[in-house]
C-alpha cells in the first residue's frame, strides 16, 4: 500500500497515516512527545538530511568537478605516455589514473557507507533518465515522486508512505537539479544516457530518502 502527495498539499488522509505510524528511533523521534510529533519529525528529519546531502552534492559538483575540469581545465601527466591529459571525472575513477569520481558516484558512496553503518535511514539518487539503469525508479512511490518533482520543477518535495518487504517507510523525494555545466555535459554526452537535452536548472532526477516506520 503506498500513499504519496506533494509537500505543500498533503491532506488529512496522509497525515492520519503518518500520525498512526510510530517512528523508529533512527528517525530521530523523541519518546514521550505528543502524537503529532512523530509525523512532523519524520518529515523534518528527511528535510534536514536532504539539506545536508544537497549542500555537499552541490559543493562537490561545482567546487571540485566543475571547477577543476571545466573552469581550470587542469592537466594531468599520463604516467605511461608522459603526456599531458585533461583531468576528468570518470565512472572508472578507481582504476584510472588522475580521474575524479562522478558526482553521482560520490553521492552513492556516501549512501552505501551510511547504509553499512545502519544509521536508521537510507537514501539514493534516482532518475527517470538514469545513465546507470540500476538507478531508475523501481517502486510505485519512486515513480510518483520522480514524476512529481520533475513536473513541479523541483518547487516542492514529495512525501509518502510505502511498504518494502515487511517494512513500512516514510519516503521523501527531492528534486535533483543540474547545478553546473559538468552535470549537463556529462549526461547529454554519455553513451548510456536516455536523455540528451538537459539544460542548467533542469530537474535531472531525485534524491529519495527513506525512514523506517513502526520499528525496524
Amino acid at each position, binding site marked *: 500500500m503506498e500513499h504519496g502527495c506533494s509537500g505543500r498539499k498533503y491532506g488529512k488522509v496522509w497525515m492520519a497515516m503518518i500520525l498512526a505510524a510510530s517512528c523508529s528511533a533512527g528517525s530521530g523521534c523523541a519518546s514521550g512527545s505528543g502524537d503529532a510529533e512523530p509525523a512532523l519529525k519524520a518529515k523534518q528529519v528527511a528535510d534536514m538530511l536532504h539539506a545536508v546531502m544537497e549542500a555537499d552534492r552541490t559543493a562537490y559538483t561545482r567546487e571540485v568537478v566543475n571547477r577543476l575540469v571545466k573552469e581550470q581545465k587542469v592537466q594531468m601527466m599520463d604516467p605511461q605516455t608522459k603526456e599531458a591529459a585533461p583531468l576528468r571525472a570518470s565512472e572508472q575513477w578507481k582504476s584510472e589514473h588522475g580521474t575524479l569520481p562522478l558526482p553521482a558516484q560520490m553521492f552513492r558512496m556516501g549512501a*552505501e557507507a551510511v547504509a553499512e553503518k545502519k544509521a536508521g535511514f537510507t537514501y539514493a539518487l534516482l532518475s527517470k533518465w538514469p545513465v546507470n539503469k540500476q538507478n531508475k525508479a523501481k517502486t510505485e512511490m519512486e515513480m510518483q515522486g520522480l514524476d512529481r518533482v520533475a513536473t513541479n520543477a523541483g518547487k516542492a518535495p514529495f512525501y509518502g508512505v510505502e511498504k518494502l518487504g515487511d517494512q513500512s517507510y516514510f519516503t521523501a523525494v527531492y528534486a535533483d537539479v543540474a547545478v553546473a555545466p559538468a552535470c549537463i555535459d556529462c549526461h547529454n554526452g554519455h553513451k*548510456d544516457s536516455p536523455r540528451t537535452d538537459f539544460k542548467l536548472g533542469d530537474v535531472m532526477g531525485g534524491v529519495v530518502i527513506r525512514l523506517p516506520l513502526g520499528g525496524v
Partner: protein
Amino acid sequence: MVVKWSWIGLSLCTMGVGTFLSNRLTGEEKSVYLPGETSHGHYQIEAKCESCHTERNEVASDACLACHRQELEDADDSHPPSKFLDPRNASLIERLDARRCDTCHVEHRPMLTNAMGVTLPDDYCYYCHQDVGDERPSHVGLEHDSCQSAGCHNFHDNRGLNEDFLEQHMGEPTTLPRARLPLRVRATRSPLSAADVDVPVEVRAAAIVAEWERSAHARARVNCSGCHGEKPGVSPSATGDGPCIECHSKQSEGFRAGHHGMRVAVGLPAMRTEQARLKMTERSAGRELNCRSCHPAHEHDLERAAVDGCLECHADSHSLAYRGSPHDLARQAELEGRAPEGSGVACAACHLPRVAQQPGAPVLVAQHNQNDNLRPNEKMLRSVCVHCHGLGFAIDALADASLVRRNFRGRSARHVQSMDWVERRRKARATRSGDE
C-alpha cells in the same frame, strides 16, 4: 562373567573412540569432522575450523571478509553488499541475497561446487538481469548461463571487462608495438661490498659473502646484521620468515593472502607440497613453503625465483608447457640481451605481477598473492596482459582453456564477442551524432 567382559570391551571401545575423536579435534587431521570435502579455495585451512566457524558451529558473518575484504575492495566489487542494503533492493534480495557471501559460496558441498567455489547454478546473473535485452539488443536470446562463462562479465571484478575499458583498447594489434611489463624499482644508493660486511671474520663464509654481494640486499645496503641481528653465526631460518617480513611486509601480506601462505596466516604450519591438490613435481616432495622456498638466503636471484622458483614444484600442464612457450622465448631473448628489458615474460610476470598500489603510482612491490589475479582469469587482463597485447586478443586467449593449458602455444580457438559489440555500439553512436 560374559557380562563383565562385555562391559570391559564396551568401555575400552568407548575410550578408543573417545581418544580418536579427541585427537582429531586437537590435531590437524580433522577430516572426520568435515561435513563434506572442502573447496579448492579453503581446503588448506580446513583444520582450522575457527577460521570460519563460531563456537556454535555457525559461519561467522565476517569470516569471509576477514580474508577477502581487501581483494574485493581492490577489485572495485561490482556487487558489494552495501549496494543491497537499500530497502529499494528488497525485491532483488528475494531473488538472490547478495548481502551474504554464502548465498553463492557454500563450503563443504563438493557436488554443488562450480568454478570459483560458486554453489549456485551458472545462470545466477539471470535472476536479476533478465531484462538486460531491453537495454542491450545484442544480449537478446543469449544463454542464461553465458554472462560469466563466455568471458564477458564477472560477478565481482570487472576491471578488465567493463565497456569503457574495452572501448579504450579497441582496434589494438595482437602484440603492442611497445610490449613491456612494468620494471621493478631498483635501489639507487651505492651498494655495499665484501669490505663492508659487519660480522666477525671467524663466521664469514667467502661463498656466502660473494652471493650476498651480488644480491639486491647488498644493493639496498642491507648488511649481514640486517637479517642475522646480533647473532651473525645463527641462521635466521630458525626463526621462520621473521627477518624477511620486517622489511618486506607488503610481499608477506600478499604471500599470506594466497594459497602459498594462507595456512601460516591462520596459524597452521606452512604448506608442504605433498598437501597440494595441484600436481607437483616428485623432486619437490617434502618441501615447505616460506620466503626461502623461492628466494634462497643470500642468493636472492630474482630471475631464478621468477621461473625456477615455480617450476621446481608445479607440475600441472600449464607449468610444464612454459619452457619453450612464446613467453619463455621472449624471456630468453631479454636475458640474452636480444630484446629490451621488460619484454620477457616469466611465470612470476603474470602470477606475481608488479602492480602499482594506485593507478599511475610507481611500482614498488610484486604482488605475492599469486591467486590475486588467477580466477577468474580475466582478472589478469588489466594487471598483466594489456601491457603487451591487444585487449581483444588477450580476452580471446584467456577464454580458451586448452590454449592456457598449452601455455599460449598457438592461437585461441575461441572468440569472445564483447569487443565486437562495444565497437558496434560506438559506431551506432557516431552515426547518431553525425545525423544530429
